[in-house]
Structures are given as C-alpha cells and as structure tokens.
C-alpha cells in the first residue's frame, strides 16, 4: 500500500512510498521517532510521506535502513 498524497499536483514527487505503512508495522513508530533516527525533523518526514519532498539518496537509504528493508521496498517509482 502506498501513500503519496499531495495537495499541489505540481509538487508531487515522481515516486510513491510506504513509509506510513512501515511506521505502523514498526510498532506504530511516530514521524518524530523516525525523524530522530534518520537525522531530520518530523516535518521533513511528513513532507516525504505526503510526496511533497524528494529526499536525498542518503536520507532515503537511512529511512530504509531504519525499517531493515531495501530501498525499493520503501520507495517505488511511479510509472506514467
């Protein structure tokens, strides 16, 4: 299940992500907890989750590492 909700279509990233689901499966981890583990703010995690902001490769890998998943299990390229 992917969550990529953005109010501004122009701001939509070209990929979806499963961060919200993975957080839920990881003991209902909060955005703040994930942000602390990754080294970004809660607001940045929220922006990534909503598809408003494209994280750097490093942050993307860090997020995947927190959940113990490969990158493609967290982020999926959105086909046209």
């Amino acid at each position, binding site marked *: 299940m992917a969550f990529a909700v953005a109010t*501004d279509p122009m701001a939509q990233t070209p990929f979806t992500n499963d961060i919200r689901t993975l957080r839920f499966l990881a003991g209902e981890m909060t955005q703040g907890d994930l942000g602390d583990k990754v080294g970004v703010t809660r*607001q940045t995690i929220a922006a990534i989750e909503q598809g*408003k902001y494209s994280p750097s490769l490093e942050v993307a890998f860090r997020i995947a590492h927190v959940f113990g998943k490969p990158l493609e299990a967290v982020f999926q390229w959105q086909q046209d």
Partner: protein
Amino acid sequence: MSFREKILWATLISGTAPYLWYFGSAGLALAAGNGDTSLSIGGLVNALFVGLIVMIVAVVVVAVANRGRGSMIPDEREHRIESRGISISYHMLCTGVVLTIGAAWMGWSIVIIVHMITFTFILAELTRLIVEIYGLRRGY
C-alpha cells in the same frame, strides 16, 4: 510548527514592527515633500537599535519556551528552503543597491541614500524570512 519556523515567525514579527513604523513615517514624510527635514540618520539608528533589541528579546523568549524541542541546525529540506530564501533576497538586495547607486549618482541627499540602502537590507531580510516561512508551511 517546527522550532525553526517559530524562530522565523518571531524574527519576522518582532523585526517588522519597528521598521514598518519608522519607514512608514519616513515614506509619509517623503510623500508630503518634507523628507529632508523629517528624515535623520539618528532616527534611523534609533529604529535599527529598537528593532534589534525587540528581535533579540522575541527570539530568546521563543528559544527558552521551546528549549530541548528542536534545533536551529537545518536538515536537508530546511536547508533547501533556506537556500531558496537567500537566493531571492539576494536578488532584491542587488536591485536595491543598484537603485541606491542610481539615486546617489543623481545627487540625492546622503540622508535619503542611507535610508534607501538600509531599507534595502531590511526588505531583503524580510523577504528571506517570508520565503522560508512559506516554504516550511508548504512543506518543500
């Protein structure tokens, strides 16, 4: 609202008020045709001093009220938003400096020149703050 955004709001509101008051008065005096008698370097320095003190107090209050809840060190998203704000404010600064140089070249009084360059710096800083707050509110 993130700690960084709170600090930006505090800086914007506390910084804008004294300058708006001073430059509003100065603008009205200029419009009325008595700018040279109403404007003074001393008045400008007073406004800058008051603005600075108010800004410092406001930022310290927000920082103390939110101690331990955040960091002013930007993460990558905040850094990108900050860079956008700096870029836009830099263009405003350059435009203001060019206009001030033009005013000096046309022989305007030194008091007006000093006010113009100070207003340029303040406007550029306010622009940076507004762009950053807008970016943080929008999310990217």
